[in-house]
């Protein structure tokens, strides 16, 4: 028997006992409150006692009957529960078996699928790799071609630009050389002029020096010769001439 069913039966028994005890207590209390004279009371007590006894007997019968019914019900329920348990266990076992078989099948399928997928993936990958390789080769080839074209174009452009630059540089260099030669010519002309001027100045200074020297020599000669040869009268006349010159030049104010 199941534990749950026993617990339910125990509760039922306890409930019945408590209800009988309650009925007894009620009657005792009722008797106390409604005390009747001794004779009456005695009769009543006897009657009541018999009634109670009958009631108790009947209640016991009812309880027993109820207990039996309950036990029977419980037994039936227990049987049903056992059956249910068995069914459940069976179902579970069935399910387990089914699940196991399904899982096994699924795993097998999955493995197969995985293998298939792997194989497919490998094949796809190989395809992709091959395709990519081909694409890359094609691209490389195209790139090489493009590069060749570009290099050829660039070379042409470079050659053109180089020619242009060389032409420009040549022109600039020619201009520079022209300017330089002009500048050099002008500078040389300037320096030549300066040199000529300096030579002229030097020449003039030199001539002046020579003239001064000539005058000095002349003066020295004249002083040396005339100084001795001049008479007192001549000297006196020269003094008067000098005084007249001084007067003309306003030496005396």
């Amino acid at each position: 028997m199941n534990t749950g069913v026993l617990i339910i039966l125990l509760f039922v028994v306890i409930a019945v006992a408590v209800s009988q005890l309650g009925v007894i207590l009620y009657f005792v209390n009722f008797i106390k409150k409604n005390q009747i004279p001794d004779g009456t009371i005695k009769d009543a007590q006897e009657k009541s006692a018999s009634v109670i006894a009958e009631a108790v007997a009947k209640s016991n019968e009812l309880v027993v009957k109820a207990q039996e019914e309950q036990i029977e019900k419980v037994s039936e329920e227990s049987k049903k529960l056992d059956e249910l348990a068995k069914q459940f266990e069976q179902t579970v076992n069935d399910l387990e078996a089914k699940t196991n078989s399904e899982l096994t099948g699924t795993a097998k399928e999955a493995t197969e699928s995985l293998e298939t997928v792997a194989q497919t993936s490998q094949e796809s990958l190989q395809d992709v790799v091959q395709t990519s390789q081909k694409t890359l080769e094609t691209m490389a080839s195209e790139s090489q071609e493009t590069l060749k074209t570009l290099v050829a174009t660039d070379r042409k452009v470079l050659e053109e630009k180089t020619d242009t630059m060389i032409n420009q540089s040549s022109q600039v260099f020619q201009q520079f050389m022209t300017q330089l030669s002009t500048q050099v010519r002008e500078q040389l002309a300037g320096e030549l002029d300066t040199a000529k001027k300096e030579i002229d100045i030097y020449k003039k200074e030199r001539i002046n020096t020579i003239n001064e020297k000539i005058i000095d020599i002349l003066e020295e000669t004249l002083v040396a010769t005339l100084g001795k040869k001049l008479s007192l009268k001549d000297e006196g006349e020269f003094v008067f001439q000098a005084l007249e010159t001084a007067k003309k030049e306003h030496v005396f104010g």
Partner: protein
Amino acid sequence: MDQLTPFLTAFFKTTFTQADARRRIGLLEQGIEQTVYTQGVTKTLEQVVTELAKQKEDAQAVVQFLSAVKLPSDTTLLKKMLAGLRDAVVSKTAVILAIPFEPTAEQIVAYGEWFRVNVSPDVLISIVFDASVVGGCSITWQGKQVTYDLEYLIKQKRNEIVAVVDQFVEKKRREKVI
């Protein structure tokens, strides 16, 4: 000063150089000392001056001066006149005339008169000898000194001389080339 003016005029009429003026004033002072301030002298002032003078030009100049002026009889006034005459001569600035020869008395008078006519009526000259001033003279007056001699003339004629020299050199060069 007004009393002194006639004396100065008469003095400068015969004296033209500063040296002559100082010497002649000294001669006059000496003569007055030996006549006016000395008792028992029988000679005249002119005679004493002529005796004292070492140069006849000095004696003649002083005698001429004495004949041109009347000396004061008062000795104090006479002293005052002599002192004034000396101060006027000493304080007077002279024109310095440098010449390369020893001038004669006539030449000195001639130069002195020239200066009196052309510079100032009472100017004195101071003649100094300078052999470097050939063919002219050097004049110093009021802090200014000028020389007009042969060197000055040559410098004045410099361009003409240079032109002549250049012509001469050019002529010689052409002759050499030919």
